[in-house]
């Protein structure tokens, strides 16, 4: 199999970071889907006059942006760019 050289250094590190953040989001998203499907009474509860369904839904949208910014800040780029050129 003619595979490209395995990702190394910053590319691999960034990829691992991406997977960790991805798993965090998947768990929270799965929690939302599970609550909607199996615990609708929880979704109907109100937090400060707004029900859990709305709060959780809005939180999922905001969380996506928060994780995206965290990822962008933690990724290391300089070496990554050099590796791109080298390839």
């Amino acid at each position, binding site marked *: 199999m003619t595979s*490209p050289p395995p990702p190394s250094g910053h590319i691999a590190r960034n990829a691992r970071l991406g*997977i960790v953040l*991805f798993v965090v*989001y*998947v768990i929270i998203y799965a929690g939302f889907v599970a609550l909607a499907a199996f615990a*609708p009474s929880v979704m109907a509860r109100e937090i400060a006059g*707004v029900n859990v369904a*709305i709060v959780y839904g809005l939180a999922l949208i905001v969380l996506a*942006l928060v994780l995206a910014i965290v990822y*962008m800040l933690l990724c290391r780029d300089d070496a990554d760019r050099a590796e791109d050129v080298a390839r």
Partner: protein
Amino acid sequence: MTYHASSIAVAVFVFFVGIVLGISFYLGSRARSAKGYFAAHGQIGWFVNGVAFAGDYLSAASFLGICGMIAFYGYDGFLYSIGYLAGWIVALFVIAEPIKRLGKYTFADALNAKFNSRGIQVAAAISTLVVSVFYLIPQMVGAGALCTPLLGLPHWAGVVIVGVVVLMIVVTAGMVSTTWVQFIKGSLLVIFCAILTVAILARGFRVTADRASIKPVAATQPSDIPFGGQVVSIGNGDNAVGASTGPLGPVQFLQKINDVRVVQWTAKADAAHPGTTLYTPVEKQAREYMLPGGSSTFKGVRSPKLTDKLDFISLMIALFAGTASLPHILIRYYTVKDAVSARKSTVVGIASIGFFYILTLFLGLGAMTSGRLDPTPAGSNMAAPLLAKTFGELPFALISAIAFTTVLGTVSGLIMAASGAVAHDLMENVFKHHPNENAKVGAAKWTALCVGIVAMALGTLFKDFNVTFLVGWAFNVAASANLPALVMLLFWKRTTKSGITAAIWVGMLSSLAWLLLSGPAYVNIYKLDATRAIAPFSQPGLVTIPLGFIVLVIVSLMTREHAKPH
């Protein structure tokens, strides 16, 4: 519901189209090479590309369909907003950077970077075509839905106008002009929706009709059809028409709506009098709309039966997995210069798209309580423009024209994806026909023309579907066909070329077959009873996405020793 053509709307729209085409022709006179045509020379800055992601992704379905669905069924439309945005997490954390490193113009390039196999190229190109055409249908339906109120022309005319304008954009400068159209459209859409949301909050809720005046209606002509979304009480005891909560903050808005009482209409053909439709008012507390399960698409979520719930879970998985499998989104990664720009532009995309989806909640609920909902089947796609109309003719004209421009941006991206699949993947890499740059770009333009014509025909055929529902289908097919191949190529070293090829074919064909055998297809396409449908629930993703992964693993293990270097 009768609509009168608005001359301001026509003027605004002609103005937008004029600008868009002007830019296209200007850029078209400078972009001649294949790299320019397919990937905008790879020189688009990350910020512009990020906003263009929003312009590419926020389709007519997002704008018209979601607002309509929230306006009529409440929370269920917002489920789409959540799922559509969540899909970007997959794009950012898993797909964006590798696909940029591996590919040149199309995602078939990336899939095939390791293997150089014709089988993969063919499968990926066909799946790009199928997904793009599937996604084009709702865009065209959206264009037709807008055309009647905006220009006073029939549905098919809207479809043809969008088709022709988009073909001019794509044929002049390919990805260069497509990018700028998407950038302009993305910015306009987000900014004007934000302004409209501020206007909704500033108005608050107000009583739009007297409960005593709402009686069943027997409608024989469009002008008899009553407006839905009438507010008969805002929960403070004062039910006089015009009574208002005054300006509300975003949180107050979401709190107060629970106390608002809204009247919608159920329509039924009058058996005794052909041609007459009976409209019956249904008054509900808006709180009842604020939970999942109000619409027919998601009603299974409230059913005690597990199989009914699976339909909901399946769609949420398809939306999550589908975004990063959409060819017209993936080709945007080739318009930036490197993986770092790919990442940054995805973050900009998530910010603008996420902000927009939060706005959809307010726009949808604003439409629900606007007193101006069209209760006919095609009316759900009109909820947002009609909401704008309650603020005056100019907002209506602007929002309608922006919605029309919205269709242009997304359709351009889709047609670009399809034309790359044929001219770059099929012609050059599969049939090993290596034309010179001009001929290759020429072939891409001819493909664009053919796909455009097919899309116009289908857009007329499917005009009674809610556009969001159709987009949900496209996500199912994209996720089933492309995601297993993309993910396994990146994360499983034993993946073989046969495994990838088989996974794409099986995922694509199984999800398509499932959709065509599902209840909604029976009702809306074949005009048969939904209970006769063979597919147990309507959204295939839950079954066909894992199926793609399983097929890939099994076939890869079986063909391991054959996967030697060429």
